[in-house]
Structure formats: C-alpha cells, structure tokens
C-alpha cells in the first residue's frame, strides 16, 4: 500500500516528461477545439434564435406592448395588473388545475393497471402491448376528431348509456362533463407510453422478491402493494411528473374538440395564451399568461425536486 502511494508521484512526473511539446498550446486553441466549435455552431445558432431568444423575448413581452408595426413599448406590470383583475384568467387557472386534477390521476392509474396486466409472459402479449401503444403515436388532432364523434349526441357512448336505460349526456356541451371527457381522451392517448415506462420498471424488479413473498404466503394484491409499487417508485415518479406537465399543457385536443367551451368550461391557461395571442393579437397580455405558466412549471419542478431529494 505504502509502496503504491509512494510511487504515484513518480509516475506522474514520468508522464509529464513524456508530454509532447505541443501540449504547451492552449487546448481551446487546438485544432480539435476549433473543430468542436464548427460542429456545434449550426446547432447553437438554431438554438439561440429559436429557443433562447424566444424565451427571453417572451418574458420581456409580458412587460411591454407590441404593436403590429413592430414597435415595442414598455408598460411595466400593466399586463399583470390586468391579468389579476381578469375573471377569465382566474377561470382559466381554475379550469387548468381542475383538468390536471382529473386527467393526471386518471391516466396514471390506468397506465399502472394496464402495465400490471401486461407484466406477465403470455401468448400474444406482444400483440396486446402493441395495441395499447398505438394511441400514443396517433396525433392529438386525429384523436380529437374521432372522440368528438364518440362523445356526440348519438355517438357510441350515449348509445351504450341508453341501452342500459340511462339518459344520454351531451359530454362536450356540458360544463360539468367536458373536462372528464377531455381527460378521458388524454388518458387514452397517453397510457400506452406510460405503460411501457412502468413495464420497464416492473421487469427490473428481481424475481426473487416475488418468490420470497409467495413463500411467505402473500397474495397477488399484497405483492402488488408491498413489492411492485415501492420498487417502481422512480418509474412511477417519472410518469407522474410527465403526466402533470402534459396535463398543464394540453392544447390540441381542447382546440379541436371544444374550442375552450362550453362557456369557457374548458378554457385552460394554454388555451387563453393562444386565444389572447392569436385570437386578439394581444401579444403582451398573452405573454403574461405564458409567464404564469412558467412560474407554475417552476413551482412544480421545485416540489418535485424536494420530493425526490427526500426520497433518495
């Protein structure tokens, strides 16, 4: 041991002595570094112009008034003052939270249940999994268009309801049912993706855990609660975060299916941003809504970090 530590500095000097003289050249002036700059340059240019500038510009716009002639005037916190006095904003915030509170748990529970269902070796399992994943690659616009029909007055769901003697519901025209209906569409679109993530987590759980539990006489339900769920925590957490973000940002299906209606019952913050920005061309006001979205994202990622920090 002592010999080893003693010999280390010797090795070091020996190595230094063998350094080629070119090493004196600063490494960032080296040919390799210049090549690196050339390699990243196109990417960086696009990134700066279409990601970083818009982000800064977007926050800046919320403090300014942009006229269609291209002139930008500073208006301070005017947009925020207007925002906080705007009942439509509070309505949109409430709808956003309500939608997330419905869509996120619905999707996660469904994903978990189906992942559990798929977590076994069976003939035809690959086929079932493919079917379950198919909605995840379908465009939200396409899904929205089909579900408009499925939820329509004489659509299959209402036909099913009348077949069992219930009153038909006008899902997308009813301010109570519109959010659950939209949440159902996103659950249908997203569960396949989450299912795969959860399935990967489930496959990584050592089989021995289940064998030991079986010897101890645990039933399937107990095995799920005591072994699968705790071992699945990282994957489940990832799915939770993903679904939370997605549910806050849902736009396409709402645009296609309800246009924010009925009477703003599905008018979310992202929809308000679009509506103010491209409906009224009030870019400054719309950007203030965008900053609120940014703050919500930051708050949620802080909570997430706090939770992860405690877990690890």
């Amino acid at each position, binding site marked *: 041991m002592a010999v080893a530590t003693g010999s280390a500095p010797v090795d070091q000097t020996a190595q230094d002595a063998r350094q080629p003289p070119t090493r004196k050249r600063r490494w*960032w002036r080296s040919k*390799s570094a210049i*090549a*690196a*700059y050339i*390699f990243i340059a*196109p*990417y*960086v240019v*696009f*990134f700066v*112009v*279409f*990601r*970083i*500038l*818009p*982000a800064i510009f*977007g926050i800046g716009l919320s403090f300014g008034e942009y006229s269609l002639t291209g002139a930008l005037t500073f208006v301070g916190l005017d947009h925020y003052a207007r925002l906080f006095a705007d009942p439509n904003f509070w309505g949109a915030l409430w709808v956003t939270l309500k939608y997330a509170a419905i869509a996120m748990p619905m999707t996660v529970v469904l994903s978990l249940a189906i992942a559990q*269902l798929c977590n076994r*070796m*069976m003939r035809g399992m690959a086929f*079932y999994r493919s*079917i*379950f994943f198919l909605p995840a*690659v379908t*465009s*939200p*616009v*396409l899904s929205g*268009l*089909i579900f408009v029909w*499925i939820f*329509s007055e004489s659509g299959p769901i209402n036909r099913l309801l009348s077949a069992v003697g219930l009153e038909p519901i006008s899902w997308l025209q009813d301010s109570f049912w519109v959010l659950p209906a939209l949440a159902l569409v996103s659950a*249908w679109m997203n569960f*396949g993706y989450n299912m*795969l*993530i959860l399935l*990967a*987590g489930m*496959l*990584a759980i050592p*089989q021995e855990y289940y064998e030991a539990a079986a010897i101890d006489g645990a039933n399937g339900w107990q095995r799920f609660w005591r072994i699968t769920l705790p071992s699945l925590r*990282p994957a489940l957490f*990832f799915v939770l*975060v*993903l679904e939370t973000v997605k549910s806050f*940002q849902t*736009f*396409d299906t709402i*645009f*296609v299916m309800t246009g924010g209606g009925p009477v703003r019952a599905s008018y979310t913050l992202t929809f308000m*941003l*679009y509506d103010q920005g491209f409906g009224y061309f009030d*870019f400054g006001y719309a950007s203030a809504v*965008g*900053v609120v*979205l*940014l703050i919500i*994202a930051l708050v949620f990622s802080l909570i997430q970090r706090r939770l992860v920090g405690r877990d690890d």
Partner: protein
Amino acid sequence: MSITRDLSPAPAPTPPRMSGSMPLSRRLTRARRLAPMHVLLIAVAVVTAFPFYAMVMIAFQPGQAIVLPDSMFPDRLSVAAFEDALNSQNIPQWALNSAIYSVVSVVIVLLLASMAGYAFAKKRFAGREVIFWVFLAMLMIPYHLTIIPQYLIVGGLNGLDTMWGMIAATIANAQAMFLMRQFIYSIPDEMLDAAKIDGAGEFRIYWSIVLPQTKPIMATLGTFVFLWHWNDFLWPMISQQSPENYVLTVGLNTLQEQQVPLATMMAAAVVSFIPTLIIFIVLQRYFVRGVMMSGMK
C-alpha cells in the same frame, strides 16, 4: 426530461421463457388459469382499438351525410369518401406538406444533433459545460411561452407561411442532442484515435467513424422526430396562413370547421394515419427502446 439521464442501456431482464415441452395436462391447467387474463386483455384491447375501428368504419360509409352511421357494423361499404378525399384539391397537397415537414426535419435534426452531440461528448473546448447547461435549462421553459416570440422572429425573417420558416423553428431539439451525446459518449476513444493516427481529418472522423456507430440511436430518434412533426399542430397552424401550405393535422381541423361530410373527413384521417401505422409497425422496437430509455434513471 429524463430523456437526458443516463442512457446506459439497462439490461432488460428476460423472465424465464415458458418451455414449449410442458406436458399437455400442465399446459391445459396453465391455459385455464390464464383464460381470465386473456379475456381481460382482449376487453382492454377492444376498447383501446375502438376509436380506430370507428374511424375506418365511418370512412367507408356510403353517402354524404354529416350525420352519423346508425350501426357499428355497416352492411354496405363504399370507397366514395376516399375518392372525395384524394380528388379534393387540398388533401393530397397537405399530405405532401406533412411529409416534407417531417422528413426534412428528421434529416436536419439528426445531422445537427449528431454533430453537436459528438463535439459535446468527445471534445474539450472552452464553454462546453456552460453551453450544455444552458441547453438543459431551456427544457424548463414551457413551449407555449416561446411560441409568440417564435412567431414574431420567424415573421421578422420573412419565414411565415413558408416551409423553411416552419421547419427552421423546430430543429433546435435539445432532447435529440442530449440523446446523441449520451450515445456517442459510449463510443470508445481508441476508435477515434486510431482514425486520427491514420490521418483522418476532423470531419472525416465524424462522418465515417462516429456517424455509422450511431445507427441504432438514429433509428430511435428518427422515429420520434418524424412522428413529432407528423402529428404537430399548433406551430404549423399559426405559422402557415394559406390553405395550400397547411399540413394534414391543420387541414383536418379546418375540414371539421367547414362541415365537410364526416365520411370524407374520416377518410382523410385514415390517410393521415397510414404513415404513422407503417412506421409504428416497421420501427416498433426502436420506439419501445426510446420510451424505455426515457424512463430509466
């Protein structure tokens, strides 16, 4: 977001395969035990697939009615709606636009992301860490906040209502670059050094040593980027104003607003879904790998 995390392909533990040489009696008990599972799985599969069935069924409805078919199992099928859709002025044009938007974006994203990923993985240069962390931090910014400035910037470059303007705004894909970097990081340095000793220039090393190695990740990323563009809606909608420049998703939505017969609309929907389906069937394993990578720590 954790697409950016460590991508070391986690060893997928393969559960013991069921052996094919089980005695018949045991196979029968097993089949009986699994029967309720199959019933359950089939039920979920039917519910999951129903919207696709509905789309295809409506598309093959005869007649021009905006109203809905009476039966889930029509006795008459007709391709009239497909003829309408394909003979219409716009739908083939929109499909072409979607294809250009997606394919060109995939090529550029893969090229630029692999170049940048290579530099970030294998080269030392001043500012590497800073630039990298700025890229990472930008993932925190909600996309919708940037869409108005993006519209104004593309407008300032006279790129609105043009194909290049629509594509240019979407190719700075941070996730793609991170995935590339992670993957290229695992290519042994010795390979690059060997090429250098053989006198290969910087670009040649990238082109003939690094790029061929990235084939698996290219396939995964390519499928994702393609579908992301093929299904994209909000940005194409606000950046393209003339109907002949719409992509399929945007066009489909306008069909709905124009009260086009439902069968024609669904026929167009089927047309828009066919490339997705083909890609899904052919490249499914790359998808599955990509999704699983995104969930792995």
